[in-house]
């Protein structure tokens, strides 16, 4: 089954760094796996844990939160808050019986188009190995 499985990943990208990196990856015409579904936010710290859990409950096989490298935040320190919230979210995933590795945090700066490609493609492969999200609502229902 693993070959047929096409993961669906929700990616929350900060406007200033990672979203810009995603654009740069496009300008560089990199091949990126279509698992990624980008949602733009102003800062990674905007990501409310509810949005992440909501994504999993709606069937996301993986969720990526990506922003500026620590120390580079456009809003001083937003990404430090993101990092802290992240640790907590991972714990919540465990209680839901979800592999916490389905949630990934990545720092990708605006010049790192190739890193953006690598992050997306590697995360996709990892999710592929894990298989579909067990919480995914059954489409037949």
């Amino acid at each position: 089954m693993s070959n047929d499985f096409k993961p669906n990943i929700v990616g929350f990208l900060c406007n200033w760094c990672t979203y810009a990196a995603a654009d740069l990856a496009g300008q560089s015409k990199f091949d990126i796996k279509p698992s990624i579904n980008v949602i733009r936010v102003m800062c990674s710290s905007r990501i409310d844990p509810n949005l992440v859990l909501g994504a999993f409950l709606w069937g996301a096989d993986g969720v990526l939160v990506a922003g500026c490298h620590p120390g580079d935040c456009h809003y001083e320190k937003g990404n430090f808050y993101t990092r802290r919230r992240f640790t907590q979210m991972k714990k919540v995933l465990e209680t839901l019986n979800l592999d916490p590795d389905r949630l990934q945090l990545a720092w990708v700066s605006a010049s790192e188009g190739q890193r953006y490609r690598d992050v997306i493609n590697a995360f996709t492969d990892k999710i592929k190995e894990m298989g579909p999200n067990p919480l995914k609502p059954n489409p037949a229902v």
Partner: protein
Amino acid sequence: MDENTNNNVLVIGAGMGGIQASLLLAEAGKQVYLVEKEPLFGGNVIKYEEVFPNMECSTCMIAPKQQEVLQNPNIELMTHSIVEDVQGSVGNFSVKIKKKARYVSLVNCIGCGACYDPCPVSLDNEFEQNLSQKKAIYIPCPGALPNVPVIDPEYCTRLKGVDECSACKDSCMFEAIEYDQKDEILDVKVTAVIVATGFGLFDITAAPKYGYGKVKNVYSAFEFERLFAKNGPTEGNTVLKGGENPNSIAIIHCVGRKELGYCSGVCCMYSYKFSQYLKHSFPDAKVFQLYSDMCVPGKSYQKFYKQTMDKGVDFIYHEDVEVKGNGSKIKLNVKNGKDKDQELEVDMVILAQSLKSTESNSELAKILGIEQDDKGFFVSMTESFEPASTAKPGIYVVGCSEAPKDVPQSIAQAEAAVGKVLALT
């Protein structure tokens, strides 16, 4: 409005200083002509992957500012352009700007990049310190702004009259290629002029002891910046000429200090940054810093030096050094103030060059009627406590065009010049 007054300001040079000055002037309602000689803008900072002392991503820092410039209706950015003549006096300068033909329409081009591949001509990419090739129609690096290519008329076979090649035009769906574009002269009136022409680096071929150009794997500071840059010729994989990663690297400080007669104030810091780049990519590599005076002024910089030291970088005091090839290795003879010279063997050498004035300054000094010092930097009125003003009213000098500076000092001086310009009216 009075016939003899206008609301315009000319800013020469679109690096950090010029950008900041333009944005502030535009916000105050001035109409800004921002003239940049290169086909892209952003100055030297866009060549860097990260900046000291917080190792911030340089692009993330400057790209939003560049976007603001591009979208600001009060700023007319003229890349690939030079100021040819300035007449008049404060409040009423007449300026001639030459917009060099780009051969690509800034209006029609959407930056898709479809034109590069078909171009049959390849040449060294100067922006990448000739470490990679570009086509005769090119943007210097991915992410360059404005994202519109330029055709190099010295290499394009069609523009040289060699043939009728139209490969780029054929590939462009937007009618953006304009072979018949001509240089344009633009006449504008401005009240004041801010000069922000930036810096160059000490010419290392003038100091043979460093072995540059003769000894393999001796790199200039900008070459190394690009070798580490994620949007650079190797996508950030720092490799030696043979394609392998370096295991031992020596970074030589104060290259040009003696010859130029001043300390540039930033090379120590950028050398530590280089060490941090290297330790990040190659944690096991040996990194040596050959320093003379640690120039770490102010509240933050010494901490950066300590951080660098903590990463396992070796610091060696040197008064002089000689760089020689030794098979595939590089041998350094270090005069360290002791009786006997120290010897070092490494496989990569990076030269931390001093900052110098740009060559175009002398032409500009003549055009503007302002003074240069014996080092080619513009002279500001420090004696009368006006460090951003020149002796000629209405003309201001900021950033490294006035003296070597770091980014925040350049920005502060640009803001100071804006204060002076806005006080005129």
